[in-house]
């Protein structure tokens, strides 16, 4: 286009811009007649461009450049060592810095390194926040919380080293639209688990949102970014000491308004219920594919949160069963809200259990659904007014433990025999030990309340059951070995590395196909569940498959197969029967190398764990029997 052509077209275009929209077509037609089609087309294209370019050039170049300059980072250099970490590749840029995949040269494992942007290195407030994130998260040891290895500084950069998780964020998953209610519930349950662990440790996350939830390909959920997390007490005192305008300003600047609780938006003191709100908002978004707050603008969203008496929302038909849960999680006034992540979890489970029953009735022909039905039957056939274990007298307790133990024996294999009174006394001792912990607030493994242990167990139950069934093993075997071994702490460390859910020694791990490097697969609950099943099959092959032999396999799991094998051979030589753990125990003093105390208690503890886990309603545990959790339905 030359100067003359443009001069003419610009005049015509400017005239067209001044016309009402509905007259433009007529004008373009007239132009086509008067000036020719190409001129008319050119003006039409410009009108279109005018409409499409609303935001174009709206921000000045200076602003864009300033942004760019401010977020500039000295690139982290590949092959350079940061502490013990050698940078391998860039994983992405998060809200607060860049993340790199790195190899820990001393331990041989992979890690994700998150670097604080350089612009914040001189900034004491941001540096402190960064360190707080590391400290807060590293205080937590939970399968649904990203494990922090360490915090470090090297080459003028601060970084946090965490476990390396593959997969996508919940935000990415949600770009594909809403999730199936079962999938959404599985994710929400794991987030609730993570929050519960954080709350028990006295921390509020304060920034739960889909961006901070990582979904591993195996269905595992990891909660990230404890950047805003604060001790509950510090939060309260800090807010008290600040004029409300300042703390409000802080919240405004630091959180993402769309997932904030109303009290957070107002800058009030926060407790666990604030995270429950954010979890509710996140769950709602998973079920509907839509944000609870539709406001695009952060200020508008904040205003709405501060001022709204209620927020309207609606669930699609298939997710209606979660209506009561969300009503309780999304109560504007925190005192009317579910008080904890654990309450959220139990209401969620109840809602899910209800559908399981419905489904079971509708299509009982399907194998999995039959299993659910059976599970439900066991669950629901217990009279609703079942007395709690600790409300019964000693004789009733003993009778109950005996019935439960004998029932369990039948599930372990053929030819199960009833337990003797002495055996029941041994089992009951460990049932009572669990019961003594029932009000424990401790988060130390082995000292927690059974509520905490079994709530955690119910998360793992579906895939442990599946792994064991896949190997034609009774699922109860895996479900309760994990209680005895680690009480469902999937990644505690020992002198020989991670124990995993099933406490594998490095040799056992390698023998059953788990790799220890570059990542210790013992911490992968799915992989170790499968390995545990294969280990138990191996033991079953050695000791036999009936109920008696399974008790030997169990004690061999703890004491070692050669050792138990020698002891069994001694029983045979002495012509002692039946060949099971109890006989072994009874004649322990006749052995060359008797069972150690830990092994003597192993099988009774397994039974006690199963008595609780299969009769949760007797122990005030808000779960289904662990063996009732089925993949896809928990």
């Amino acid at each position, binding site marked *: 286009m030359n*100067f003359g052509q*443009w001069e003419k077209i610009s005049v015509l275009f400017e005239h067209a811009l001044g016309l009402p929209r509905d007259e433009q077509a007529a004008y373009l037609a007239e132009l086509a007649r008067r000036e020719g089609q190409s001129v008319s087309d050119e003006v039409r294209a410009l009108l279109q461009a005018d409409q499409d370019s609303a935001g174009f*050039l709206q921000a000045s170049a200076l602003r864009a450049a300033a942004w760019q300059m401010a977020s500039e980072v000295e690139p982290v250099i590949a092959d350079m060592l940061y502490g013990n970490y050698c940078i391998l590749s860039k994983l992405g840029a998060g809200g607060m810095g860049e993340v790199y995949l790195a190899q820990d040269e001393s331990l041989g494992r992979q890690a994700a390194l998150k670097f604080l942007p350089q612009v914040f290195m001189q900034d004491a407030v941001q540096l402190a926040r960064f360190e707080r994130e590391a400290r807060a998260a590293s205080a937590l040891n939970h399968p649904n919380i990203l494990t922090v290895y360490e915090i470090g500084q090297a080459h003028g950069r601060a970084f946090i080293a965490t476990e390396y998780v593959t997969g996508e964020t919940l935000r990415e998953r949600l770009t594909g639209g809403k999730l199936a209610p079962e999938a959404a519930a599985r994710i929400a349950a794991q987030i609730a688990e993570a929050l519960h662990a954080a709350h028990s440790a006295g921390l509020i996350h304060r920034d739960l949102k889909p961006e901070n939830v990582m979904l591993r390909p195996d269905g595992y959920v990891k909660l990230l970014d404890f950047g805003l997390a604060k001790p509950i007490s510090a939060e309260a005192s800090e807010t008290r000491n600040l004029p409300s305008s300042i703390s409000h300003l802080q919240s405004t600047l630091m959180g993402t308004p769309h997932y904030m609780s109303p009290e957070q938006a107002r800058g009030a003191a926060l407790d666990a219920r604030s995270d429950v709100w954010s979890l509710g908002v996140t769950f709602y978004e998973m079920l509907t594919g839509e944000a609870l707050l539709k406001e695009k603008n952060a200020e508008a969203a904040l205003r709405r949160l501060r001022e709204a008496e209620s927020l309207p929302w609606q669930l699609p038909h298939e997710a209606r069963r979660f209506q009561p849960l969300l009503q309780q999680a999304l109560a504007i006034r925190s005192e009317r809200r579910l008080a904890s992540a654990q309450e959220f979890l139990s209401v969620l489970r109840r809602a899910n259990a209800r559908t399981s029953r419905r489904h079971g009735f509708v299509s009982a022909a399907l194998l999995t659904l039959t299993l659910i039905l059976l599970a439900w039957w066991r669950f629901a056939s217990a009279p609703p007014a079942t007395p709690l274990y600790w409300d019964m007298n000693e004789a009733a307790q003993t009778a109950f433990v005996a019935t439960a133990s004998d029932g369990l024996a039948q599930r372990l294999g053929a030819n199960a025999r009833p337990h003797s009174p002495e055996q029941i006394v041994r089992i009951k001792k460990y049932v009572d030990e669990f019961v003594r912990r029932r009000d424990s607030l401790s988060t130390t493994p082995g000292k927690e309340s059974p509520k905490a242990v079994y709530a955690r167990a119910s998360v793992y139950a579906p895939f442990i059951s599946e792994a064991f069934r896949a190997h034609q093993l009774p699922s109860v075997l895996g479900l309760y070995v994990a209680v005895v071994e680690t009480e469902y702490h999937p990644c505690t460390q020992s002198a020989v590395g991670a124990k995993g859910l099933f406490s594998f020694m490095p040799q056992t791990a390698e023998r059953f196909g788990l790799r220890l490097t570059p990542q210790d697969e013992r911490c992968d609950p799915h992989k170790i569940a499968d390995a545990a099943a294969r280990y138990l099959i191996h033991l079953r092959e050695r000791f036999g498959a009936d109920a008696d032999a399974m008790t030997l396999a169990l004690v061999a799991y703890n004491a070692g197969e050669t050792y138990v094998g020698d002891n069994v051979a001694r029983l045979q030589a002495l012509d002692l029967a039946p060949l099971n753990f109890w006989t072994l125990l009874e004649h322990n003093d006749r052995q060359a190398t008797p069972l150690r105390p830990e092994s003597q208690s192993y099988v009774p503890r397994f039974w006690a764990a199963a008595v609780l886990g299969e009769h949760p309603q007797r122990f005030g545990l808000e779960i289904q029997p662990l063996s009732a959790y089925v993949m896809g339905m928990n």
Partner: protein
Amino acid sequence: MSESNQLTRLLIAWSAGDARALEQLTPLVYAELRRLAHSYMRSERAGHTLQTTALVHEAFLRLLGNPQEQWQNRAHFYGIAAQMMRRVLVDYARTNLRAKRGGAQVRVALEDVGEGAGQAVAQASFDVEVLALDAALAELNTIDARRARVVELRFFGGLSVEETAQVLHVAPDTVIRDWRVAKAWLFRHLNQ
């Protein structure tokens, strides 16, 4: 001589045709912009809006001193400042792009994306877009110098409608119309 006096002297020299003055100016402008950008970043967490007007005015004021004192008039000052910013920013984008070894990002419109994910997109494509826009603007300049100037003042200089009107000695309404026409032309040109 104070820093801003030195800058003013360089700016005047450059406007009078001294090309080397710009070379000396550029690093000083970068440094100042970085300092400002960082201080804004610190006070406004990622995702929040930088106050453009305040940023631009503070930058100019600090860089060049009070225009009334040293310049024959405000309009002249802003006109030269916008030109300088264009040169500096285009140069900055070009350097960045070279550093990125090819950085073949597909361009999107230079939109005011505001918050969130869009911000990252805006940053990633900033360099490519600024260069494309600079070229398109040069082309517009050959057929419509006045409207090209409006874009330079508003987009690169960060001037408001009124300030642009003062620099060009036209009515604000004219600036509004010219801006709209020029934007449509550039948008079409860049998306063709």
